[in-house]
């Protein structure tokens, strides 16, 4: 008769401790976290790759393949998902519990930015605008002006191998969820084209990290 009650008690205690932000978890982490065989429970269950801004905790998890029991900002995701990806991460646990490879691509702006051959020194600003369209940045000075065209692409890839936290709860080895290997690769590339004009709005110089064919250098 005592054993089931003890089992229930231990289970309840473990559930409270593993809640991620519970009192016991926080006390455990701050007092014996560094030397505890289970490690810092809060960091494992809630995560640690976020920073706090004036609008609250912010985390960029788009390319994160980590297996975790719940998204870190679940309530915000439920209440006001600001993009599909944000909402999808709310369902991540249900959809991708066993998905340990994640790939993300983001493209913003002009992927096909190219330097037109007609764009030579001496071209007036109106012709440059007709060739390239509206610039992303245009700063004018009394003695000249500067235009910037840009495109940004971001590719990320990540891999995670380890015991998922929910599975670790059922393995009676302390700290088993800390045994993990993760790899993350992120590459951001920007194509930029800068145009400099004199006080008469005539092109005097161009500078770009793209060639005429549009290949980024």
């Amino acid at each position, binding site marked *: 008769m005592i054993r089931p009650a003890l089992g229930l008690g231990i289970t309840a205690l473990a559930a409270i401790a593993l809640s991620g932000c519970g009192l016991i978890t926080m006390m455990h982490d701050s007092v014996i976290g560094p030397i505890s065989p289970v490690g810092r429970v809060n960091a494992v269950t809630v995560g640690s790759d976020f920073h706090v801004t004036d609008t609250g905790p912010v985390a960029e998890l788009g390319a994160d393949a980590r297996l975790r029991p719940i998204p870190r900002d679940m309530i915000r995701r439920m209440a006001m998902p600001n993009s*599909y990806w944000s909402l999808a991460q709310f369902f991540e646990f249900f959809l991708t519990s066993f998905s340990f490879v994640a790939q*993300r691509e983001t493209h913003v702006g002009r992927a096909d930015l190219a330097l037109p051959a007609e764009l030579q020194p001496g071209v007036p600003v109106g012709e440059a605008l007709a060739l390239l369209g509206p610039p992303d940045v245009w700063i004018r000075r009394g003695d000249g*002006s500067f235009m910037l065209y840009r495109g940004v692409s971001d590719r990320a890839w990540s891999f995670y191998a380890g015991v998922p936290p929910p599975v670790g709860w059922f393995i009676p080895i302390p700290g088993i969820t800390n045994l993990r290997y993760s790899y993350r690769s992120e590459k951001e590339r920007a194509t930029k084209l800068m145009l400099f004009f004199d006080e008469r709005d005539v092109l005097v110089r161009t500078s770009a990290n793209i060639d005429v064919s549009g290949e980024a250098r």
Partner: protein
Amino acid sequence: MTKNGSVREVLLLIGAVAIAVTGCAISTQRFGRPIDASRIANIAVGTSTKADVLREFGPPSAYSALPVVPSRQDPSVTGADDLLARAEAESRMFVYEYREDRENFLTIILLTRFRREVVSDRLMVFFDEGDVVHYVAFSKQTEEPAAQ
């Protein structure tokens, strides 16, 4: 039960699990109103006025001005005062913008793939001191709508 039967059941189960844990989604969020590029030809530089632009395209997404930075040198010495005043006067513009935020998400058991693309069509019309069109700039990144 035969051995063949149990193998088939296991394969069916694996197939069912694979289908159950596979998901994909495609979404496109649209901001603003598409810009009718065919009407840009009706805007003539040096002739059309602010009223003509409003008549063709309606209210702009933004009415703003380019940042004009004063020269570091003393303007009274360089004579940059006039140039700066002209630059300020020619920096007012209408901005029309239509943006698409395309996202697609795919998860197949062990792999999650996410792709996001943000593209926009922008039309900028600059005016001179007399509210006459000075420059027109247009770029289209979204695809043409399919023919009906």
